């Protein structure tokens, strides 16, 4: 192995201690499975080790590492979506049990107002905890597609390619997820 790599090993080892947790949480949020998340983090550090010359142009190790991890997560999803089980889990049609609208397709009742206090806006708040729990109620594939859209801001076109669905399917899926989360929050917080 080239000596450049040899001297890079202790640097990357230090990064495992410094950034390992951040990378792990980043992966875990998206893939949910702790073993898969760990594997992706390990693959990230191994890939980082192989490219010391690429890093020299970057200033922030964390940003660079997250970039590598993002690609690993994307590849992971690309493999995942090929499985039949994954395809079945995504709801493609509008929910027939949706009862918020009457026959004239107007809202049955008004929505409560969501006025957040400064405490509620904090990431340590009980509200944040509730939102986290509501996200946990999503199926794995719902959660994956939603977080890729919301957090990584992957465009519709990319998501359609990745999950092999039409734009209309995608928008219906995201709408249903948003409704589910909104209902969950309304039920469990904004009573």
């Amino acid at each position: 192995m080239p000596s450049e790599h040899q001297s890079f090993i202790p640097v990357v080892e230090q990064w495992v201690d410094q950034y390992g947790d951040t990378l792990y949480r980043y992966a875990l949020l998206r893939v949910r499975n702790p073993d898969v998340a760990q594997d992706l983090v390990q693959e990230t550090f191994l890939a980082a080790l192989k490219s010391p010359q690429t890093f020299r142009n970057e200033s922030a190790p964390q940003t660079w590492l997250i970039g590598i991890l993002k690609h690993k997560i994307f590849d992971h999803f690309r493999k995942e979506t090929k499985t039949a089980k994954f395809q079945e889990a995504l709801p493609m049609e509008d929910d027939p049990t949706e009862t918020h609208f009457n026959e004239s397709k107007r809202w049955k009742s008004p929505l409560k107002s969501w006025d957040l206090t400064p405490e509620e806006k904090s990431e340590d708040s009980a509200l944040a905890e509730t939102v986290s729990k509501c996200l946990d109620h999503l199926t794995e594939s719902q959660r994956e597609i939603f977080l890729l859209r919301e957090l990584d801001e992957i465009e519709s076109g990319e998501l359609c390619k990745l999950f092999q669905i039409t734009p209309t399917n995608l928008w219906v899926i995201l709408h249903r997820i948003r409704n589910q989360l909104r209902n969950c929050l309304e039920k469990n917080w904004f009573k």
Partner: protein
Amino acid sequence: MNLMLNCEQASKLISESMDHRLTWLQKGSLRIHLAMCAICSAYARQLGILREMIRRWSRKGVKILSGKNLSPEAKSRIKSNLRRQS
């Protein structure tokens, strides 16, 4: 084409507007509906708040949405795998 949306159509477009650019026709119809419908306006605000919260909290170091750490064992395993690459 009917420019007057019902609430079911409006709520669908509200969600879609968060995922792609609406046509000017869709945008116009939606804006008209929202001007007349307080409940759909509230719905739009709530979806916006939901997105805001999730993005803000996950950006801040992903603490609430996924508060786990890599175990010390996992870290040593990764480090020894790195060393094995030499």
